């Protein structure tokens, strides 16, 4: 799937560049893309280190196990063979819910690692479910959007909180349903 997405995006974009006679620009555009991955990784490095460190403190204090016990039942409905991934998955969803995107990503990666038990290079049902859940942004307060609305002179920047919350819930429910259905195909 990703091989087609990647290939088609790259080819269609490159052909358009070349058709416009912008070959040199295409090269610099390709490099900018790769460069931005490096810059992004460096920006993320600090927050990964911080959150992985704090997560390990929580682990050694027994809090992660406690959280896992608490959420085992509800989360196993969605991800039946999650096992050790329950705790980081719960932390990831909680961080997303409270709008802490930077904290959510390391927990999400930890979840994927724990889910990756057979190391076959093939996504499991649970992995797909976890990713689908992450693609519907259920968030308590969409703070970034509210800030942008305020900056753009909105008279009621908070007006969108309820519709945003309901809409993201709809997206999450559809994500779960789509995953369960597609997994059977």
């Amino acid at each position, binding site marked *: 799937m990703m091989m087609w997405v990647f290939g088609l995006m790259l080819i269609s974009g490159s052909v358009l560049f070349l058709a416009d006679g912008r070959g040199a620009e295409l090269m610099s555009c*390709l490099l900018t893309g790769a460069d931005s991955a*490096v810059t992004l990784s460096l920006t993320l*490095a600090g927050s990964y280190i911080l959150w992985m460190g704090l997560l390990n403190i929580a682990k050694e204090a027994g809090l992660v196990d406690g959280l896992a016990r608490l959420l085992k039942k509800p989360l196993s409905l969605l991800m039946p063979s999650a096992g050790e991934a329950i705790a980081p998955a719960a932390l990831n969803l909680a961080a997303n819910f*409270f709008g*802490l995107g930077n904290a959510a990503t390391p927990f999400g990666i930890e979840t994927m690692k724990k889910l990756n038990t057979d190391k076959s290079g093939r996504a499991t049902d649970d992995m797909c479910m976890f990713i689908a859940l992450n693609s519907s942004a259920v*968030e308590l307060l969409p703070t970034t959007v509210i800030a942008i609305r305020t900056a753009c002179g909105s008279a009621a920047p908070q007006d969108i909180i309820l519709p*945003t919350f309901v809409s993201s819930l709809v997206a999450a429910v559809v994500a779960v349903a789509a995953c369960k259905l597609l997994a059977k195909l």
Partner: protein
Amino acid sequence: MTDYILPILIVLLVAYALIRRVNVYSAFVEGAKDALPMLIEVLPYLAAMLTAIAVFRESGALGYVTKAISPALNAVGIQAELAPLIALRPFSGSASLALLQDTLLTYGADTDVGRTASVLVGSTETIFYTLAVYFGAVGITKTRHALPAALISGAAGVLSAVILCKIM
């Protein structure tokens, strides 16, 4: 309010761990050690995805997609002004925030278009980025139904944003 939740949680966490006689210093360091290999593993996947996205966007291909989907969006009652945002949203978080700002300034933050654009951005995610990072971290290339499910969920998010903004 949200500015305080996190720091307070961190203080409570470290205090609780100390009470339970956890060596918080070595625990932090041990955990942090896993962060760098994680980043290095994700980097190639991120680079592949961001390169493809950059070419797709800068070449104007994304613009054609936007034009192509506008009539279809109109047919289901989605304002054509939202087409660029809908097309861009799954690819780039920072670019869609910039586009949201542009949309709000052009059409007004409290108009139908402005409100729907805000709800749409708030209730959907950068699907391709999420997929690249999470599957990249565990070296998975056969992503099975993750992408279709995420895209269907994203479409549902867009549709419900449009409908909810009309009735709420």
